[in-house]
């Protein structure tokens, strides 16, 4: 009997002991902090995520997120957004934003990660000094890029340059605009010294730091110094431009089309200084701008159009109602080479009188007389689309003109039926966007299944040239300004060097309506359209220069109202036979584009402001 009792007791005891081990389970899919900072590999991976977060937050597709609309092309008159210019998408263009809007703020988590990495890397006994130097350069670069995104929107920001703890005063006030820009420029100058000359694609280099510095310093010159010719920030732009070895021949520039119409050519192009790529492993049409550019055809268009403009392929399960239809306002900015070779505004060229039809007057499909960037950027009436699958007609009663848009207004009266394509996801301006649209893409039912590699330009030489030109222009050095404007006109625009020089020869002045400044604005728009919403921030920069900059939260000259940010959008109505055209103006329920001076600095979300205690921007209180 005792034997039994003992064995029972033994069983009991063995069951009751060793419980701590039993509950000591571990996760299989995590690493520790210690492992991370003692490995060069993992430290690099830590920085990669910061790249992903910083560069990803200013992407083209941000247009689709309402929160980022202030950074989207739809803020300007370059595009009509949404099917039929819907209210939702055009809200901010009509200046309907209030302090209840939330356009984001510095990501504290990102800054904490940057500062944690800076701290751990600098204090690491294991990491080699050369590695530390490059890594620190990258972190400074990324911190600057992150800050600049919000400095453009709000002006002065909270300057957080280290790890904050609970013991710190966390009601951090906003610094002045000057301090904020100086902080960013300081970071970029550090980055420019420690970053390498070359790096793997997707990582920052010396050139990237200099290129970003040019962009930042131009903005700073306007907002901090009111764009006075003597501003030190212009000097910084020029210094950085020289470091980038910019030259009259534009030797770093490549064909515009190569950068935007196929992945393979984009990554091979030397013009791109910093890119953000996506891999086909996890990228489909849904994850790139093409998602928003799609045209639809499911055969639902008029019998006339089916006879005259047939499409023998179904194009649907495609774009989204975000849409981004280029306006006539944008198209007007593409210059044309007239019969005598001179470069002109298209409306001033002889073809307007001699052309037999709209194409011969405006688009020159066969001879390609417009600025070459036009053909890379804009899809117009009677172009082939979807890798040659279909010919698209945006004209009245065309196979891809939106039946409900002004293009087909009054068609029932005219033809007795609703003309155009009744699928709403079709052009309502007469144009569609194809910059950043890869040529090999065809129409498939499920865009999610069409996997592809994709390459965004973050920084490139084309912009650097124009930034250089702008710095000279603003300082009154018109000769140098022209010198740096010509390379993009020639290499990207496809114009003859001499004719470009001739086009600029008599132009001078840097006030808003001065000819040289107007030519510069036009050149910059056609060069940078759909990239980083450059048009909007540039207009603000130039307008701020007219306003004299911000001192003590006030505009020195009472605030300049930017004419380009006001009024209706324009589209084209080409006749059914393609021979004639007229322009129409379009607005939506929320009205035409509006701009008042408070827009130079956007409102800070009120509920964030109440918690953080930061000051609101002027005009939004």
């Amino acid at each position, binding site marked *: 009997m005792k034997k039994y009792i003992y064995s029972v007791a033994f069983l009991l005891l063995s069951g009751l002991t060793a419980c701590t081990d039993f509950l000591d*389970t571990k996760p*299989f899919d*995590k690493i520790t*902090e210690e492992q991370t900072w003692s490995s060069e590999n993992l430290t690099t991976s830590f920085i990669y995520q910061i790249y992903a977060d910083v560069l990803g937050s200013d992407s083209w597709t941000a247009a689709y997120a309402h929160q980022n609309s202030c950074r989207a092309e739809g803020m300007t008159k370059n595009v009509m957004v949404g099917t039929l210019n819907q209210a939702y998408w055009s809200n901010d263009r009509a200046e309907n934003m209030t302090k209840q809007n939330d356009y984001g703020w510095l990501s504290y988590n990102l800054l904490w*990660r940057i500062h944690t990495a800076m701290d751990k890397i600098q204090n690491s006994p294991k990491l080699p000094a050369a590695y530390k130097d490059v890594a620190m350069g990258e972190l400074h670069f990324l911190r600057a890029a992150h800050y600049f995104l919000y400095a453009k929107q709000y002006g002065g920001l909270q300057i957080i340059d280290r790890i904050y703890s*609970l013991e710190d005063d966390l009601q951090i006030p906003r610094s002045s605009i000057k301090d904020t820009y100086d902080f960013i420029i300081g970071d970029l100058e550090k980055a420019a010294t420690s970053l390498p000359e070359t790096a793997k*694609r997707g990582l920052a280099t010396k050139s990237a730091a200099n290129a970003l510095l040019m962009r930042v310093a131009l903005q700073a010159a306007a907002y901090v110094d009111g764009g006075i010719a003597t501003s030190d920030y212009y000097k910084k732009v020029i210094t950085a431009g020289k470091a980038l070895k910019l030259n009259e021949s534009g030797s770093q520039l490549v064909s515009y089309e190569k950068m935007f119409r196929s992945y393979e050519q984009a990554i091979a192009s030397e013009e791109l200084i910093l890119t953000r790529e996506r891999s086909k492993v996890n990228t489909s049409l849904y994850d790139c701008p093409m998602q928003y550019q799609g045209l639809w055809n499911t055969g639902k268009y008029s019998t006339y159009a089916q006879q005259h403009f047939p499409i023998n392929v179904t194009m649907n399960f495609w774009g989204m109602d975000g849409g981004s239809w280029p306006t006539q306002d944008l198209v007007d900015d593409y210059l044309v080479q007239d019969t005598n070779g001179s470069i002109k505004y298209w409306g001033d060229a002889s073809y307007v009188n001699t052309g037999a039809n709209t194409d011969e007057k405006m688009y020159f499909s066969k001879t390609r007389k417009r600025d070459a960037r036009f053909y890379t950027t804009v899809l117009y009436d009677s172009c082939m689309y979807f890798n040659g699958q279909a010919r698209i007609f945006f004209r009245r009663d065309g196979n891809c003109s939106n039946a409900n848009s002004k293009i087909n207004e009054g068609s029932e009266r005219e033809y007795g039926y609703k003309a155009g394509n009744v699928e709403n996801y079709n052009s309502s301006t007469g144009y569609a966007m194809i910059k950043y649209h890869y040529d090999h893409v065809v129409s498939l039912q499920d865009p999610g299944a*069409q996997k592809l590699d994709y390459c965004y330009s973050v920084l490139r030489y084309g912009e650097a040239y124009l930034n250089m030109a702008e710095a000279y222009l603003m300082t009154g050095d018109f000769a140098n300004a022209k010198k740096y404007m010509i390379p993009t006109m020639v290499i990207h625009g496809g114009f003859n060097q001499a004719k470009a020089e001739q086009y600029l020869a008599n132009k001078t002045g840097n006030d808003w309506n001065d000819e040289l400044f107007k030519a510069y604005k036009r050149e910059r728009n056609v060069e940078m359209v759909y990239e980083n919403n450059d048009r909007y921030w540039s207009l603000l920069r130039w307008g701020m220069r007219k306003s004299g900059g911000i001192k003590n939260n006030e505009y020195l000259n009472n605030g300049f109202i930017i004419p380009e940010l006001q009024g209706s959008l324009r589209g084209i109505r080409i006749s059914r036979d393609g021979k004639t055209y007229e322009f129409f103006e379009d607005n939506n329920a929320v009205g035409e584009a509006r701009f008042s001076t408070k827009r130079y600095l956007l409102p800070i979300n009120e509920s964030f402001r109440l918690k953080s205690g930061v000051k609101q921007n002027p005009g939004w209180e």
Partner: protein
Amino acid sequence: MIKQNKKLSGHYRKVLLGLLVLSSIDVADLRATTWATPLPNGGIVQQQKNVLKGTIKDENGEPIIGANVTIKGQNNGTITDLKGNFVLKCEKNDILIISFIGYKTQKIQLTNVGNNLFLNISMQSDNNLLDEIVVVGYGTTSVRKNSASIATVDTKPLKAVPYSDMTSALQGRVAGVIVQQGSAEPGQNGASVSIRGNGEPLYVIDGFIADKERFLSLNKDDIKSTTVLKDAASTAVYGMNAGNGVILVTTKQGEEGRLSIDYQSNFGFNQLSYPTERMNAFEYATAINKLNQSLGQGLNSFKSPQEMDEIAKNLGSYTNWEKTCMRNSAPQNEHSLSISGGSQKLKFYGSLNYLKQGGIYKTDVLNLNRYNYRTNVSAYFDKIGVTVDLNVNGSIKDEKYPGAGAWTIYSRMRDRTPFEKAFNKDGNLSNQFDNPMLVLQGPGYVKLRTVYNQLAAKVNWDLPWVKGLSVGFDGNYNIESQSKVDWKETATYYDDNGNATVDNPSNISISRSAYMDNQYDWNFRVNYKTTIKNNHNIQATLVHTRQFYKGDNLASASNTFYTTAIKQIQKGDAASITGSNWEGEKASMGYVGRLHYDYKNQYIIEFSGRYDGSDNFPSKKRFGFFPSISLGWAISEESFFKKVKDLGVFDYLKMRGSYGQIGINIKDNDDNEKDHWDYAYLSTYNYNTNAYVVNGKLVNTVTPGSTPSINMTWYTRTKYDIGFDFMTLKNKLEGTIDWFFEKTKGYLSANNYRYTKPIGYELPLEVSKAEDRIEGLDGSLKYSDKIGDLDFSVGANFTLYNSLYAKTNEDSVTLANPRIRKQGEKMNYVGTGYIGTKFYQSPEEVLNNPKRETSKDLRPGDLWYADINGDGKIDGQDQHRYGHNSSPSFVYGFDIFLGWKGFNVMANIQGTGPRETYMNSYVQGSEGERRLDFKYQLDTWSPENRNATFPRPGNNSMNSNNNYASSDFWSVKSQYVRLKSLTLSYNFKYSVLKRVNWLQNFTVFASGINLLAVGPSVKYGDPEAKDFDGYSYPMMRTYSIGFQLGF
């Protein structure tokens, strides 16, 4: 506590069991005849054996059919026939044992035997079944000894009801249990289950902690008993996992006696329970015309009057999407076979079950096939007092779904208009955008096979040296594995010109995944049970228990298939192949103790608790103690109560109370609080795959994990319960009622009182001061009686509770408007927004009253919100909590049983108290034309229709969304009463099959679920659904017929 349905069960069982044994009666008769054959001759009398005849009747003199008559210590035995007669051979001094369920077992010593002996035996009904065994956590008790709040569910009456899962079967049947079904999608239709308003309960099957999925897929025929543990006293033994209550299931064991085989088949079909009527083309065009008119686009801008006339003439030529995509009914059938029997030394039970459910879609793309098996074998080694139970069971579940989920399909169906077409004129699939038929007719599918196998063993040893002391070991090992394949391929479709779009190979993809979950549990038990001086009953239990889980999965995918004949990953584009896996483990352990003492079952005190540990917490903080105490006082057993008893009013009355602290350590999605995520206490970094691209190649990245919460712990729920159990009117009426009060503390929350965001990382979770409370009543009442041949019972049960945010972790912004903050408020409101909403009926009302600043174009027929703070304008400060959400806090149910000469009627009626369902933006139509679907949406305000359901036509961009802002206007009353189930059956053993010896039971039945509902929201759809938008798989009404055979 009184068993739910007990009396019903008593009667039901009596009848059923009677029927079950009919054939053996005949066999016994036959045998008896054989034995008795010599009798008339009087000559051949077996030596020493005499023939005993007798009749067994109940207290009312009615014969008892199927009572067991055996002789102690022998295998001899028989069963009474339809007249209650039996014949048995016996010897002098044999002890006759007469037993029948529901009656007290009698022992009669045959002091005098002879051939003409005839016994008239009257059986006493086992009064109130107070001593019947009730299974509780880690043991058993009886109604008489119980002092906790528990309820048992008699699942037997459910046998003929075509419930495809167990949760629905609990609805409306148990006091304290609230069940709401939201969808009836085969394989997905698990209803939400709550005990007294708490979250998902713990499920325990045959003594081992299981999960809801296992409970759902039980063969309901296998269930012997289901107990619901509600208060602290009953749940403390499950420690930190039992805060939401426990549902405890015991499966059938073989029973000593004859071998029996049961077979049941039922064939059913499902129909939409409350299909909402869609607008036809004319109505839709009218609605859009009105909408456009409201938006300033003029009269008839969508369809001109001529077009409208044309539409009205050709209504049949437009699409009704429901009819296009769904069939009238979906089939469902179930077959179960069980075998049971055994001797004192070896008992066995085995069963097979097959369930098939089809989907309501027109094509057969959705179906569920489930196969269950179970064998329970119990061996008793009488010489050493050891019992060994082996329980092997498992299931295979095969699910097939279309290439898109129900939500996608239904949303596409809803978003279509009558003017769109699924098919072209030639009958081919059209290129309609988001055509639901493209999915339903497409070659794509999702298939899942889930296999579960469990091997459980229990050993119990009654130690021979100490009477009442036993030790035991229970162990269980189970494996669940699943194989899933998701084949994506789109059907070919055609545009209006007949151009075909064939799926591009790169569009065709496959993904497969598989997982295997392994889990073992074991319990080591010591029990001691003794009675001192006949009056002092002591029972003690100690258990050490452990659970360990380890699981992993593997998933892979590829795309671009040039042939669809082979659906294998490696046949796709090699460059597209991806793969991933996961693995993890979890462990928990506990020490359970229970000490019971009662004095003559009159005064009861019981302590129970668990010292419980979980790997969710940092070492040294892993264990918590969860104690409880309960007291019971059977007042009816007091001498002073005798007079009351004699009056025949109260036969039994017990008062009981309990108190205890239970834990909650589960991922429970409470809106305000963080959950117990795995390893939240560990400082970890995440290694993220494919997060950035460097040189064209995806690279991995590292991010800090969430801030380690080293102080995290379980939530503590303190529970109080006071209850009464009673039996009255000669035990015909029994009832129980409980008051309960629960306080939950220890919610984890980051310290949000101070603004700390700029530090850049989340503060760790700490135990906050937040506290929730629930208070309520639940109870049940059942009256059972017999009038002539009519057996009947009527039962009622209810649950009523209030839940409160006693203290919250609200931040400073929320605190600013006391009308929308939660603290001190009931939990179950619908939302916050404007209240007191009505229509502006005239321009004067618009002019002379407060309005929203942004609503610049208010007109009659727009919504007029109350100016709560009286500041003359309507803004955020006027917002207020409103309504009672769709989770009812009062539910009730009625169970009705009628039995007459083989005919049975069983019905269950279930209903809720106040409840409201929010009409979301889809139903409001605020998103414009593609959300206008239903006929009732035509009921918009106009000067001629001032009491409309909807404001004047419009959408959310009209007038700054005045009408569709969150307000009580859109919160629609949705309480209901429904005939949840009804079953009619007839057993032919009562008539034509009376004499068929080999057949014990042949019953045919017809049954239905969700047959009828009454309530204000029925016009919008099934009242039980959580919304009316029709974007999810709808609720079904099920009809079925079937039969049962017993051998």
